[in-house]
């Protein structure tokens, strides 16, 4: 089983709507066969435009998109054989569930028996057997969503695009649908390109995530790498929670650097995007990597004043004033050892230089 690692290929794709602003800038992206890839980014970052170009509803201003090595820019959407799940489901309101699912099969001139079989299979896949004769308006949001997914998969497309498909659902339903879509992907092995602005959705479901901002892919990597090792300050800020220190590099060695912060104190950090002395930088540190009152020996040890305590049950979020940063967040596990967390107390905070990533100063 040799899988094509360039099943979908964006090659130097630019897109502009008005001839003045580039919505997508020089996009190069390879998507492997059977992969679940998520385009993640704030609204207006160009991720939906990329999806629309792949689906064929927008044409690239420059560059080419390849599907299984064939350029597809000149192929109209209905000949691309790409399934799509739309943001608002886009179920045909005047057709029953069965007719909705049969639509792509009927236009492909399948026989009545084949259609019945495929519709049956697709509906049981999303556990909606028995809903054939309902109208979409009679279904709940989650059920409509599942019908939309089934409809996009029923004609066995090579690629399925999903454009923020869970955006309209409530939180619980959204989470269970995330798993459901993930399982469907695992069981049938279709290539999925998923667009969302919800990072937890992206982290839960994807093999790889492409973080979009300002028309560019900021980082393309697996969810854990994206979270643990953001390559620039946008990604660090966008994915998960993040404590920032801005300062100037004073001393760089191979895997360590000294950063002089704006309030004058110095910390040790991991030089990711800095190379020489005097460079401006933003040091990023995940809240859970900073520990309080630890006995382990760590390179950075500072005292901070507790400004705010928010009880979350399993953990407590603490906002500290630390090294001039009034919004330094800590996540303290709920244990008997951490009982002295009170407003106004001074506590010791420590972290390793490896976890403090010195990134670009944006």
């Amino acid at each position, binding site marked *: 089983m040799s899988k094509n690692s360039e099943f979908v290929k964006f090659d130097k794709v630019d897109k502009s709507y008005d001839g003045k602003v580039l919505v997508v800038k020089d996009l190069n992206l390879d998507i492997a066969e059977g992969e679940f890839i998520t385009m993640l980014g704030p609204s207006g970052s160009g991720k939906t435009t990329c999806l629309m170009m792949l689906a064929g509803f927008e044409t690239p201003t420059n560059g080419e998109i390849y599907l299984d090595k064939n350029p597809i820019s000149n192929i109209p959407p*209905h000949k691309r054989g790409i*399934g799509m799940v739309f943001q608002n489901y886009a*179920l*045909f309101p005047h057709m029953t569930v069965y007719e909705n699912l049969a*639509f792509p099969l009927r236009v492909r001139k399948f026989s009545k028996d084949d259609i019945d079989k495929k519709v049956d299979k697709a509906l049981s896949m999303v556990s909606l057997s028995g809903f054939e004769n309902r109208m979409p308006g009679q279904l709940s949001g989650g059920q409509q969503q599942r019908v939309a997914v089934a*409809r996009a998969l029923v004609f066995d497309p090579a690629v399925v695009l999903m454009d923020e498909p869970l955006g309209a659902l409530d939180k619980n339903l959204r989470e269970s649908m995330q798993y459901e879509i993930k399982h469907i992907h695992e069981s049938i092995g279709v290539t999925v390109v998923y667009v969302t602005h919800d990072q937890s959705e992206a982290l839960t479901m994807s093999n790889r995530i492409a973080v979009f901002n300002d028309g560019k892919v900021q980082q393309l990597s697996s969810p854990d790498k994206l979270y643990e090792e953001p390559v620039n300050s946008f990604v660090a800020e966008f994915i998960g929670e993040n404590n920032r220190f801005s300062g100037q590099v004073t001393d760089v060695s191979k895997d360590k650097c000294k950063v002089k912060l704006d309030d004058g104190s110095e910390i040790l950090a991991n030089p990711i995007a800095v190379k020489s002395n005097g460079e401006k930088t933003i040091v990023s540190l995940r809240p859970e990597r900073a520990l309080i009152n630890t006995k382990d020996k760590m390179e950075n040890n500072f005292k901070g004043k507790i400004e705010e305590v928010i009880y979350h049950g399993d953990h407590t979020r603490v906002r500290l004033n630390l090294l001039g940063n009034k919004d330094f967040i800590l996540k303290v596990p709920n244990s008997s050892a951490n009982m002295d967390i009170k407003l106004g107390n001074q506590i010791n905070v420590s972290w390793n230089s490896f976890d403090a990533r010195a990134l670009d100063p944006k």
Partner: protein
Amino acid sequence: MSSETQKILTTDGIPLEESLKKAEKKNKIKAFLLVCPLLLFLIITYVFPIGDMLYRSVDDRMVTDMLPKTYKAMKQWDGKELPDEKVFEAFYLDYKKLVEEKTFGKLATQLNFEKNGFKSILKKLKRKMKKFEEGNYKEQIMNVHKRWADVEYWRALKRRAPSYTYAKYLKGVDMYENEDGKIVQVPEDRRIHKILWLRTLEVAFFVTIFCFLMAYPIAHLLATLPMKYSNLLMICVLLPFWTSLLVRTASWMILLQQQGIVNDFFVMIGLVSDDSRPEMMYNKTGTYVAMTQILLPFMVLPLYSVMKTISPSLMRAGKSLGGTPFIAFWKVYFPLTIPGIGAGCLLVFILAIGYYITPALVGGASGTLISNQIAFHMKSTLDWSFASAMGLMLLTGVLAIYWVYNKLVGVDNIKLG
């Protein structure tokens, strides 16, 4: 059952239903008072006139009341031969009274509707009556004019005896009750109403079709263009609404007449020669063109409001699922616009079926519709009961169409906005 045996009580012990009624009573009165003016307005301007129209179309008491003695005397007459002296005497007395009261003109008009030629012999009778001697009125009246000796005229008189009649409705479909009481068609050369009814239906039907064909693309464009352009287009669609109907019709007269702009243009591009300019006005063509243009917004607006609600992602979904643009349109977009099509067609058809000014101005002889005939009877012949009868037939027709539409498409599926 349980509600009777075990009434639910409020905490104060009053039955819940009563308490609820009391609580809602005030609101109900308020609501009623609020709609009261409109309700009165509707009753005065709508229910009452239509009721009056219905009444007028069957009411025939005028003649009955004017000739009470005659009809009393006629009760014994079998209508086969000329009536006897008693009837003639009664008629003479009734008519004399009418002449003294100077209301005989109405009788003449009414009887003339029933049978042509009545008016002149009544007038002649009035002149000669002054010299009548007492007794033997039959002889004297028959001497006034030979038609007075014609049994047909007396039968016509007797036919007007009942207080209510459906004769006007028969007349509206070119039929009448003949001397033997049978309902038959009028002679072929006088069947004008049937032609008018059919023409009205035909014009309304084709105007609806033309409007639909023209409005569908316009409405789609309106619904899909960016705001900047769609607003402009919307103004173009609505502009005719803000112009007087008369002005618009008159401008069509300028455009369509034989020496008009359209004909000049045809001649200029060599489509027709100067001496054979086609007649595009004072016939059906003129009626079609002007009515289609005038009624177009009534089709565009319901279509637009429905199309506006159709998400563009539906068409995209249709295409991404493998449908060609045509299939996506035909299977997905078009069925969703049916409520708008229904509303627009019904609206245009109903408006077209009763259209008056435009056919009157540009229709000529072959382009007039039933409403022009109604107006003619209202204004020229003053046969209001006939006009009412035709008006009601028109109204019934519209209601029938509405009913059929409801059966076929369902009124709930209509969307005006």
